[in-house]
């Protein structure tokens, strides 16, 4: 078969991504398998009768073999049904539990909004800093930016968050320290209230992206064709913008996608600090109360996003690689 090598590599990556997703879904699914046998009693309370516990187990499908339940779970997840939460159940058998999807859906939008806002702020800053530090390498500017970013990388997210709260919300009240938004909040107001969490995440990921961008460009500057361009009289700016940058896009795009994937995880801590109603906070609450279906739902969403973004990064890297585009 005569397939273009790029298509072939991309298909391979897609297959690999699907396989990873499959295994990951099995791991997340097996969370409910690993619970101790008496968890029904623990959730419904000591007063639960054997009948209600049995009914609860039947509702979870624990009377069926594991592979059947896995298929049902994945089938449900594909159709947007992630089961029902453990909370809201009690011994009397009255079921006030809510569907996991209903819990996650509004919060997912909030989380995506926060991540999106961060990306919009962080990516241009990181690129500008990365290119400019490569341009003025070893200058005072370069060293200052480098030291500053090295320090922010070493800081835990909540440290950055609380410093920002102390400075921008408590000492000089510019932004609100609690990011309480809901569906009715208008967009501008929403962005204003989300400013501090977005700023925290920006500080955390800009450092990484900027350093990688700088490294990618500096790496390229050592190649012979750049020397050739220099010898033919191109200026430093011209060399970086015209010659180095086009070849640096692939690593930079990979770095951006990778950091956006990292953002997915970073939101968990930041959402808790700012009491932002997102998926991360929901997941932490569910872990504390050991509400497994909600934990599974959130974990599945985080894992899928993470894997997808990494897959996109991979594919961008392949597509923009000129050596693969023009096979000999």
């Amino acid at each position: 078969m005569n397939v273009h090598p790029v298509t072939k590599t991309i298909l391979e990556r897609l297959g690999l991504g699907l396989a990873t997703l499959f295994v990951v879904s099995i791991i997340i699914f097996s969370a409910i398998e690993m619970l101790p046998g008496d968890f029904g009693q623990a959730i419904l309370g000591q007063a639960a009768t054997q009948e209600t516990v049995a009914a609860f187990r039947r509702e979870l499908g624990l009377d069926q073999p594991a592979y059947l339940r896995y298929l049902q779970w994945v089938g449900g997840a594909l159709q947007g049904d992630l089961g029902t939460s453990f909370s809201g159940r009690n011994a009397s058998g009255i079921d006030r539990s809510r569907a996991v999807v209903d819990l996650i859906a509004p919060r997912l939008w909030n989380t995506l909004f926060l991540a999106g806002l961060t990306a919009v702020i962080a990516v241009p800053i990181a690129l500008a800093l990365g290119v400019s530090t490569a341009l003025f390498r070893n200058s005072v500017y370069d060293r200052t930016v480098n030291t500053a970013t090295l320090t922010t990388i070493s800081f835990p997210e909540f440290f950055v968050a609380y410093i920002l709260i102390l400075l921008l919300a408590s000492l000089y009240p510019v932004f609100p320290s609690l990011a309480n938004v809901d569906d009715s909040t208008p967009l501008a107001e929403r962005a204003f209230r989300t400013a501090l969490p977005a700023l925290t995440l920006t500080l955390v990921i800009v450092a990484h992206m900027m350093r990688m961008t700088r490294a990618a460009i500096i790496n390229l500057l050592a190649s012979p064709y750049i020397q050739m361009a220099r010898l033919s009289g191109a200026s430093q700016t011209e060399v970086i913008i015209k010659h180095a940058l086009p070849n640096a896009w692939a690593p930079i795009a990979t770095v951006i996608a990778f950091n956006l994937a990292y953002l997915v995880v970073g939101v968990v801590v930041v959402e808790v600090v700012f009491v932002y109603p997102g998926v991360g906070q929901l997941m932490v609450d569910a872990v504390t109360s050991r509400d497994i279906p909600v934990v599974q739902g959130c974990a599945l969403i985080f894992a899928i996003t993470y894997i997808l973004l990494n897959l996109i990064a991979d594919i961008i890297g392949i597509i923009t690689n000129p050596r693969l585009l023009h096979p000999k």
Partner: protein
Amino acid sequence: MTQNPDTYSAAGEVGAVLEKRTFWTRLKLDLKKSPWSARFGMVIIFIYAMLAIFAPVFAPYGEAQVFPTPYAPWSSEFIFGTDQIGRDIFSRLIYGARNTVGIAVATTFLAFLIGGALGLIAAINRSYIDQALSRLVDVFMAIPSLIFALVLLSIFGSTVLNLIIIIAVLDSTRVFRLTRAVAINVVVMDYVEAARLRGEGLGWIMRKEILPNIMPPLIAEFGLRFCFVFLSIAALSFLGVGIQPPTADWGSMVRENASLIQFAQYDLKAGLTPLLPAAAIALLTVAVNFVVDWFLHKTSGLRDEQ
């Protein structure tokens, strides 16, 4: 030195002036050449280690000793005030060095034990074991470790032992990758083959033939892994699913005192209180990073390109 022209050898002359350097003299020379950042890092790490080991000596009060005034301001009696139920924050900070750092060190050791051993086995063996382990690690690394840790903690519950095991297993994947990658280059060396041919067992080849030759990258990785583990444990404790009260721990201390930050306008010291444990975490991470940076620079033999 008297030279006898008949038995002269260059090696002999060099040998006469060659100074035998012990481990300590070499260490002293290295330290003399170290940059200020690395020295700063080492001093900080030393102070943290002392505080952790001799916590009861340095701390004025007990770890969980409760005093009648909650949220007391900074004073000579309570250097950094008291927390929400009246425990001395300064004492808890010192005990936190013992708990938080101790647990992180234990976790990192466990991660290296698991990841390092499996990585070496995979590199030496190169059969289906290598394939199976590598694919398994790929999958583990495809899920963000914080999310994975949250899922596992919700299943097994948040105890210190579970925390150590879960984080160690998740982090051992990266140790595995590194160990396998560097060990593969050493495994093909002739002296390893010779050891195999003279019938040494797997354990000997791992410990005596390969491990000494891959130590530098592993030591540097140990520092970086420690930072990562330390930050993840702090994050999980901050989220309330890591180290549980009443154990003094920096992550949960930030969470418990976070509300004080709202009073920064009226009393700046109170506003700074929740930042102290967070700063303690950040300072140690920066210090370790500085030392690792210097170590990597020293062992890689690379010079700064100008």
